Structures are given as structure tokens and as C-alpha cells.
């Protein structure tokens, strides 16, 4: 449970408040490094694939019109490479989704830190900084690998220096790149979700009619209830058995041989009904350690 509590605190640390003009806090969740790196890799691969396709088209074009007038193919290739390298990110993030294909796949989007709308100058600033965050370390890497020993040392020093920019997101709690810092943006996780069905009560045939006392239902708080909800939405038999045993022990109920999930469902249902009624009276118990104040 201590592990879960730590996880919950970490989760709360990733929330950033964004109050809409209507006065509701959307409490956006910042993207993890673990979401952003795959998104960037997907974008890199897409750019690589586009570059290969561009090269192929230019070469085929050059051979069909004849090598003597192949200059146009070279120009197309150079401009295409330039546009791809500098404007893929900028144009994608200026669109209504404010995300590149990689970010879309990871369910991310770019947001202005102030909550204003994302303007073109912010997008340009955050993406032009990629030059020192990614391309410069990359060039130092190849510079170091390709040259002699003295130059390799220079390359190494350059790599260490530019590594500061590359690893910048690891060293601030908002997970901002240098580009994000300068543009006043951050990347939030806003995946498209489907609304799954509500956990229906009494779906278990032949389960005994459980009756819980108020004391039995007051053992846990909201956090435990929602953890139980997550288990019920994705039921694994061995986890259900452990949790059911723990709850039965806690509320002093003997093992009655009924189905664990049926028991958990019934307990969830009853506890949620009681706690939601409590909410209406202004009583909210965050977790099982959050004891009501004795008068």
C-alpha cells in the first residue's frame, strides 16, 4: 500500500492546473519522459522514411529526364530535406491537434504554459531549439567518431556540453525541453479515451446477498475504492483473490466460498453508494488513513 501511496503522490505531482474561462480547473497531466522519447523516435523514423522516399523520387526523376538536366532533382532534394528537417515539427504543431504524428500516437499535445492558445511564435521557438538539443549533439557524435584522436577529444567535449541541452528535460520537474522553456510551452498527455461501461451492480448470478454494516463499509477511503475500481475493470483472478482475502480479513468476514469477484463487486457497490452519499453531506475521506475528526 505504501508503494501505491507513493505512486499516487507522484501522479499528483504531474498535474498542472489550467483554469478555463468558465472557471473549471482541467488539471492537465504532464507527459512523461517515457511517452515523449517514443513519440520523438516515431517522428524521427517518419522523417527518415520521408527522406528515403524523397531521395528515391529525385533519383528516379533524374534518370528519367536525363542526367544532364538533373539539376532540378538536386534542388528539389535539397529544399525537401531543408523543409522536412525544419518545418515538419513546426507545421504539425501549428495544426488544430498541436501534435506531430508521433505525439498523436502517444496521446500528447503541446500546450502554452499560461493556458493561452498556442501561437505560431511559440511553436517556431520550441522547434528551432531542436538544433542545439538534438542535431548539434548528433553532429558532435559523428564528428568524434569520424576524426582522429585529438578531434575525437574535441568531439567528446562538445558532446558533453551539448548533452546538457539534450538531457535538460530530465532535470526539471515540468519535463521541459530547452525549446519548451523558451517558448513557454509544455507537453501534456491528453489521450483520446472512450467511456467504458459503468460497473453494473449485481451482475453475478447465484452470488449470495451480501449485507455490509456501516462499520464494515467505513474501513476504506476514496483512494482504496478507486484502486478497487481499477482492479474490477481489469480483473485478474490471482489479484482478485489477494484483494478479496485482504478485505474480508479487514472487515472481519469469514471466507464463505463465494466467487471473489462477486464479493468484490458487491463490496465496491455498497462502499461507493455509502461514500457518495457522504460526499453529498460534505464528507470526503481521501484514504483509509484519513480518519474523521472526533468531536
Amino acid at each position, binding site marked *: 500500500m505504501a508503494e501505491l501511496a507513493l505512486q499516487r503522490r507522484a501522479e499528483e505531482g504531474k498535474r498542472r492546473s489550467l483554469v478555463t474561462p468558465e472557471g473549471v480547473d482541467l488539471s492537465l497531466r504532464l507527459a512523461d519522459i517515457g511517452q515523449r522519447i517514443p513519440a520523438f523516435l516515431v517522428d524521427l523514423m517518419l522523417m527518415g522514411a520521408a527522406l528515403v522516399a524523397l531521395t528515391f523520387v529525385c533519383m528516379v526523376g533524374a534518370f528519367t529526364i536525363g542526367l544532364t538536366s538533373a539539376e532540378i532533382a538536386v534542388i528539389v532534394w535539397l529544399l525537401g530535406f531543408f523543409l522536412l528537417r525544419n518545418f515538419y515539427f513546426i507545421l504539425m504543431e501549428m495544426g488544430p491537434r498541436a501534435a506531430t504524428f508521433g505525439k498523436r500516437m502517444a496521446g500528447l499535445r503541446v500546450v502554452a504554459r499560461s493556458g493561452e492558445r498556442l501561437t505560431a511564435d511559440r511553436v517556431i521557438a520550441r522547434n528551432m531549439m531542436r538544433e542545439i538539443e538534438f542535431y548539434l549533439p548528433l553532429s558532435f557524435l559523428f564528428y568524434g567518431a569520424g576524426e582522429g584522436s585529438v578531434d575525437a577529444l574535441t568531439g567528446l567535449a562538445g558532446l558533453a556540453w551539448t548533452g546538457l541541452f539534450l538531457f535538460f528535460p530530465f532535470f526539471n520537474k515540468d519535463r521541459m525541453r530547452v525549446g519548451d522553456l523558451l*517558448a513557454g510551452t509544455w507537453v501534456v498527455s491528453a489521450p483520446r479515451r472512450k467511456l467504458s461501461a459503468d460497473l453494473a451492480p449485481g451482475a453475478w448470478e447465484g452470488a449470495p446477498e451480501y449485507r455490509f454494516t456501516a462499520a464494515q463499509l467505513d474501513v476504506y477511503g476514496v483512494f482504496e475504492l478507486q484502486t478497487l475500481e481499477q482492479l474490477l475493470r481489469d480483473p485478474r483472478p490471482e489479484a482478485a483473490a489477494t484483494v478479496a482475502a485482504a478485505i474480508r480479513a479487514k472487515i472481519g468476514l469469514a471466507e464463505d466460498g463465494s466467487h471473489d469477484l462477486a464479493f468484490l463487486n458487491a463490496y465496491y457497490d455498497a462502499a461507493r453508494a455509502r461514500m457518495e452519499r457522504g460526499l453529498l453531506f460534505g464528507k470526503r475521506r481521501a484514504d483509509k488513513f484519513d480518519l474523521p475528526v472526533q468531536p
Partner: protein
Amino acid sequence: MTAPADSRRFRAAREGEWRRLEDILMRAESKSVRALSDEDLLALPILYRGALSSLSVARETSLDLELITYLEGLCARAYFFVYGVRTSAGSRMTAFFARDWPAAVRGLWRETLVSFAITLIGVMAGYLLVSSDSTWFDSLVPSGMASGRDFAATDEYLRSTLYHGEGGRGLAAFATFLFTHNAQVCVLSFSLGFAFGVPTAMLLVYNGAMAGAMLALFASRGLGMEMGGWLIIHGSTEFFAIVLAGAAGFRIGWSVVFPGEESRLAAATIAGRGAAIVMAGVVVMLFCAGLLEGLGRQLVTGDIARYAIGIAMLALWCGFFYLPRPAANG
């Protein structure tokens, strides 16, 4: 046993509206706003406010985590769509050229002067070094850039490079290469500004020194005047762009070191956004410089005409950026 009837009824009553909002957003995001019917467009803000109020109610009365997470996601998506970009690409372009870009450049006038002075120092240093000792030339100008134009070359060859370009065929491709290369250097000098502007200054000095070394080479053969014409026709635009990119970098570096009244983060953000507008303009300027270099210099071979075009371009840019203009109304 009573089921949590209230929160379930709440959800059942509003689920249809949430799904409709989700559907509208899905269509608008994957296609465009134009894919929506008038009916949907009118319904969108109402559905959005409805979803927001559902979220507020759910947070206070429901313990269904799945529902709250879903509503948070839906509301965030709708918020970004409803309060997102409204202006068309065309009107944004107009605003950029008519107002934003010149204003951003004017805002950088101090840094532009510094950046210009540093480039000038680079040019003079390159010129003086190579004039006094021609062996400096090889260390200042990489052989790829020089392409045979060095102290071993004959006067005739040097003269021919000024008026016949770098070898006849492949000129347009070379000009394109120079454009993309220069643009990349400009983006680099902008982004390096974040490292307190020091690498930006080094790039500017080096860039100036290269031009100075070239000038010294041609001046030593009595071709200084002609070389000036060859350089200025596109150089006035190109160097102006590089100076502005350096200025944008300096602004960022300066604001990180000396944030003034603002917090360091806020100062960096303000500087970064202004500098980004300048940088978008720098790419446009470099494109013009590429055209002048690839086409203009091949078509115009008279020295006087080259000087005239170069100086006219400079005057045009200065007028565009710095001439006072009536404040935009509205």
C-alpha cells in the same frame, strides 16, 4: 442494498451529450472545422459547457474514477478546440509581414547593432590577417567553400569566378545548397544564443572573417572593387539575415543572464517568442538572398548594377523594418 443510484442516473442522463461532443471533436480534429455542419458548430460551445459542468459535478459527487478521467480528457480536448486558433493561415501571414515581423526586428535594435559590430570586427580581422600573412587564408576559409579561389589561383581564374559563376552548370543547385546551409547556420546561431550568446558571437566572428579573407584575396589582385559587387548583390540581404539571427540569439542569451524585472523563466519565454518571429523572417530573407545569388548574379554582370541592386535591397530591408508606420487599429 441501495445502489449508488444518484451518480449512475447522473451519468446515464448526460452520456448522450458527451458522446455527441466526442463525435464532433473527432470529426473536427481528423478533418477540419469545415467538415462540421452548422448545427454541430452551434451545438459545440453548448456541449462543451455542458461537459465542463458535468466534470464539476462528477468531481464533487461521483467516485467513478473512469468517468472523471474520461470527462477531464474530453473537456481538455474541447477546451483546446473551442479556444484554439481561430484565424486563417492567410490572415496570419498578412499580420506577420505587415506588423509582427518588422515590430519584432525593431524590438531587437540593440542586439542588431551589437551583432553587426561583431560581424564587422570579424570582417576586419579576416581582412587584416590575410593581408598581412596569406597563410591565414587556408585556416579561415575551408577548401570546400573556397573551391579553388585561393592564393595559388591565377588572376584570370579569380576574375572568371566573379563573372561566370562557380563553373557554369549546377549554379541553381549550388545557390539552393547555400540557401539551406545559411539557413541552418542561422537557426544554429539563434539556438546557441541560449548558451549565453557566446557561441553565437563566435559564429558571427567566424562568418565575418571568412568574408574578410575572401575580400583580402581579391583585393591583393586588384579585384577588390569587383569582388565587392559580387558579394554585395546578395550579401547585403544575406548578411543582414545572419546579423538578425545573431541578434535573436543574443536577446535570448541576455534575457537568461539578466532577466530584469521578470523571473528568469518568464524573461526567457518573452525573449524566445519575439526572437522566433525574427527567425521566421530570417528564413524568408535568406530565400531572397538565394534568389539574388542564383539568378540575379548570373544575369547582372555589371559592377555598378550589382552595387545598385545590393544597396537598394539593403535600403528596402531597412525601410521595411525601421520606418515608422501608423499603429495598427483594432
